[in-house]
């Protein structure tokens, strides 16, 4: 057997890193708003953030495809702005992944923010920290465990997910064919040996990454009792 092509793995890692990065930032904003708001809209927004999970990935991918394609509103804008289509492009699968993994980032962050409460932010404000400064320098390190959870769930889920990415991205080698699609295709085309190798590699690699992350978290503990 040949050595499997490393391309899909790099693509997956890029996708997962970018998706995780975007979601940690955007998810933070949304989670922070949700944790602090007294708006009557809060339960509605909370429900909406969980909705992407409810649809089967392929089906969600289908709707995203419709929205992002040049016939759709978003795809049209993108095409006019960049001259390229959003569907079947790396940018497109990033958007798909971000949308689909949104709950994995928002929910743990919100839960952590709410559990920590406003006390530390108040203390920081009394030391002249602006809300943004206080958030960055106090709230987020205290919420480290929540960030870890959000990052791990988002990252792992983006690595493993393929329904949305396949639909929106079209499995184009080098552009949108990520490792999960590659493995999926090996199984579908009954090339089990290749599937085993890739799966084992992916599992071992992910395991090592995760162990490293968790071990670091243990060495620099955040807020513990």
């Amino acid at each position, binding site marked *: 057997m040949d050595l499997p092509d490393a391309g899909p793995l790099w693509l997956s890692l890029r996708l997962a890193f970018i998706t995780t990065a975007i979601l940690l930032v955007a998810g933070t904003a949304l989670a922070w708003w949700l944790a602090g708001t007294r708006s009557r809209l809060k339960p509605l927004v909370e429900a909406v953030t969980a909705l992407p999970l409810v649809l089967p990935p392929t089906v969600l991918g289908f709707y995203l495809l419709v929205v992002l394609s040049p016939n759709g509103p978003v795809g049209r804008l993108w095409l006019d702005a960049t001259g390229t289509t959003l569907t079947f492009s790396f940018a497109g699968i990033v958007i798909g992944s971000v949308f689909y993994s949104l709950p994995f980032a928002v929910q743990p962050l919100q839960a952590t923010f709410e559990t920590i409460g406003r*006390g530390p932010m*108040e*203390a920081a404000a*009394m030391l002249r*920290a602006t809300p943004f400064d*206080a958030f960055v320098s106090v709230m987020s390190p*205290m919420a480290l465990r929540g960030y870890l959870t959000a990052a791990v769930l988002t990252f792992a889920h983006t690595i493993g997910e393929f329904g949305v990415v396949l639909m929106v991205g079209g499995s184009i080698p080098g552009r949108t064919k990520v490792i999960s699609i590659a493995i999926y295709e090996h199984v579908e085309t009954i090339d089990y040996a290749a599937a085993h190798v890739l799966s084992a590699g992916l599992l071992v690699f992910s395991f090592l990454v995760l162990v490293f992350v968790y071990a670091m978290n243990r060495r620099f503990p955040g807020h*513990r009792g």
Partner: protein
Amino acid sequence: MLTIDIRRRFAGFHLEVAHAFPLGGITALFGPSGCGKSTLLRVIAGLDAGAEGSVRFGGEAWQEGRRRLAPHRRGVGYVFQEARLFPHLDVAGNLRYAERRARAVPGRAFGFDDVVSALDLGPLLARRTGALSGGERQRVSIGRTLLARPRLMLMDEPLAALDMRRKAGILPHIARLPEVFGVPVIYVTHAIDEVTQLADRMVVLSDGRKTAEGPVDDVLARLDLPPATGRFEAGAVAEARILGHDRGWNLTRLEVGGQVLEMPEVDLPEGTVVRLRVRARDVSLATERPRGVSIRNILEATVLEIAAEAQTAFAEILISVGGVRLRARLTRASVADLGLTPGSAVFALIKSVSFDRRALVPAGTGEADGEGTGPGTGHP
């Protein structure tokens, strides 16, 4: 002036206070548990979104109706009742956090090391905050707040968790804050001894309302305050001039109302004018000059006023020692036995040992309004 006129309503509790805090010295906010002290501080700091009314700091409007200036722009320091250290930083990290965000105060530098040594934080610097004792936590919190160089310090029972010696070590530093930093302090406490040692003025809260205000001793001497407020500690403050020291016996002689009084030695030069607190319960009266008693201070005095407290054993006597007013707390029985009436000539007996280190009142840092003059003011 910090002028407030605010209302805050909780289910079952209603705070409504209007007051003008001079921006100088230390004002004690005193009152029983649950009377609204912490709530009032939170409103001043801008942390309570539900308060209404106005808060004005010198020329700045901090709150008008429900429009509030953001808390972090007010430049107030807040020592919380529960410390609120940042658990992800060690002790040094907590201190540096504040230091980095401080506004420079030209001329009056007061650095990290000064705070560390003043509060004896050296051995704690590398500690996780989770590994601190209750008192240690509170000391770090005070240090952190100091290092942020606030324009106004709000302190919520900062010493409740500290032992007497540590308290004694820290109190002078707090007492000197207004001088050293030009930073006025509003100091919440339910400990009357902290009030008497620290504060120039006090505001008494009771069930959400201001029930008394003014110089500490005036307030403490008021007969209409509930006895638990600290009757036991009540007294009078007399202006006294240091005449000299008796190094052999470790005594200091002072002149009060033209007469001489002795107390345990204090380290102040001759001629200094001090304010001396004399507790009413440490003053006895006699109709003839006693002899051969260990009580060294026997002052000639005149009874001005007698207030017997019904249903109790006590009476409080206002006397004049050469024009200086002091208070004596006797049993009603003794008042009768000695036949005291206003105008009686008496001898006031004051034990020298009754003057502990609380007896000397910091020579009030002036009630002058500090606006624009203090080094900490002038920025938003």
